[in-house]
């Protein structure tokens, strides 16, 4: 039997005595395209921080390919991560090709060419990253994530602030990576339509796990969609009141 790519059991995270993730359990099978949806403050970024080992102060268990991530950081070699808005100095003097090469010891030029072609950015390889548009920059960060030959790609609301055309290109690339290269993809997004079209599984997070299962079961169930939008609205109001 094939091991699950990711297994999360009873994950609870408290931050400043406030519970931001409450007893969440779900699994991701290999080659899944999982869309994680939830309003602002639902705990999506915190969940990713735990999965990526950035946040270690949690209860419960997270396993990648059957191994508890607290016991070894080697699992990180299997993961590519694309953050929401990568923070870097605007004038950082580095070309697209140099970004992909960063931190990599055994990455030859032919492999870099392949990766850049996969994300449709090959013709920009000698441009300085700060000169590119937001959409192009995000494709560079996918290329960077692919340099490690990851089995899993985690993307945290990667198209926030990116125009429609770039977003469509971005989603096409993700579909190709999932279907042709069998990379398991976990994408958090506010865009329900996108998740509906791209993901075969969906997880609705709002501190607790509201739903986890086949996308169609969620998106074709009006009752679930209504409950989700009501719960999202409540969270949105709560978030606004806190501010």
């Amino acid at each position, binding site marked *: 039997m094939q091991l699950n790519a990711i297994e999360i059991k009873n994950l609870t995270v408290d931050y400043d005595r406030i519970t931001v993730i409450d007893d969440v359990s779900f699994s991701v099978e290999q080659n899944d395209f999982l869309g994680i949806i939830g309003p602002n403050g639902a705990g999506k970024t915190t969940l990713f921080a735990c999965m990526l080992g950035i946040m270690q102060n949690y209860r419960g268990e997270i396993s990648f390919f059957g191994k508890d991530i607290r016991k070894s950081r080697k699992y*990180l070699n299997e993961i590519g991560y694309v*953050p929401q808005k990568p923070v870097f100095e605007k004038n950082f003097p580095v*070309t697209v090709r*140099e970004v992909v090469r960063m*931190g990599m010891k055994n990455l030859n030029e032919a492999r870099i060419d392949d990766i850049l072609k996969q994300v449709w950015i090959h013709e920009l390889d000698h441009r300085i990253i700060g000169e590119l548009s937001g959409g192009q920059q995000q494709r560079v960060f996918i290329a960077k994530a692919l340099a490690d030959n990851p089995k899993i790609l985690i993307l945290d609301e990667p198209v926030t602030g990116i125009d429609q055309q770039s977003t469509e290109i971005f989603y096409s690339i993700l579909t190709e990576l999932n279907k042709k290269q069998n990379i398991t993809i976990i994408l958090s997004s506010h865009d329900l339509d996108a998740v509906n079209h791209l993901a075969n599984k969906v997880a609705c997070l709002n501190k607790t796990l509201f739903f986890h299962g086949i996308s169609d079961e969620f998106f074709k169930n009006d009752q679930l969609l209504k409950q989700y939008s009501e719960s999202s609205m409540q969270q949105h109001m709560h978030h606004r009141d806190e501010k």
Partner: protein
Amino acid sequence: MSLDILYFSFMQKAIISGIAIALLCSVVGLFLVLRRYSLFGDAVAHSSFGGIAAGLLVGVYPLWTAYLVSLASALIITKIRQKFDISGEAAVAVLLSSGIAVGLILISLSGGFTTDIFSFLFGSILLVSTENTILILALTGSILIVILLLYRDLIYSTFNEEQAKVSGIPVEKINYLIVFIAGITVVTSIQLVGILLISALFVIPNVTAIMYRRGFKQTVLVSISFAVFSVVTGIILSYIFDITPSGAIVLLLIAIFAATLIIKSTGLIAKLTA
């Protein structure tokens, strides 16, 4: 005036040491500038003033005590930044003034300002000894080898700390390594431009080179070229016109910076890089 001055032993030592320091400051400074840590060199240099004063007071070679104090200061700044909610520039400001305050008290205890103190404040590259030239070359070589070996990790953790961490790069260790290297570089460079102008060597060639909008390796090369040119020309001009080398070096760096600004404003850099 011919190039006969280059046959003088003191001039050869000054130029060799100057080139080594220019190389070192350009490379280390680029990482500091890109980490928005431009004034780090200044803070460590000012804190090393306390170390120099302590050395002079107790009769130990001042550069040794300066190395100790500057390394301790570099580590303190890093720790304060990590542990407390204080911005990097605020930590730098606190350390900068602490170093000067301690230095001033120690100097007043040891009988006031002497020529030695002034040579550390303003630099004295023309007086550099053979032993110091060897030390400067050895430290420059060692630091550049470390940077070369860890180049990919250093640049990645400077570019995006979070992603570097996720890729398994030991970012915290790299951060400590950078401040350690910067601490050594600052004290080594004090002999060239002195405590008061040290940050010019770290910052100006790099800020100028970044404006040419090239890749990382080319930016390093451009920065090194500007720094080496300014240091060598500055040392020679200072001898010819009997002026302070540190002032001449820094003014040349500023002239290149100003020229780059003018070229940039004409749009020439954009045309060249298009």
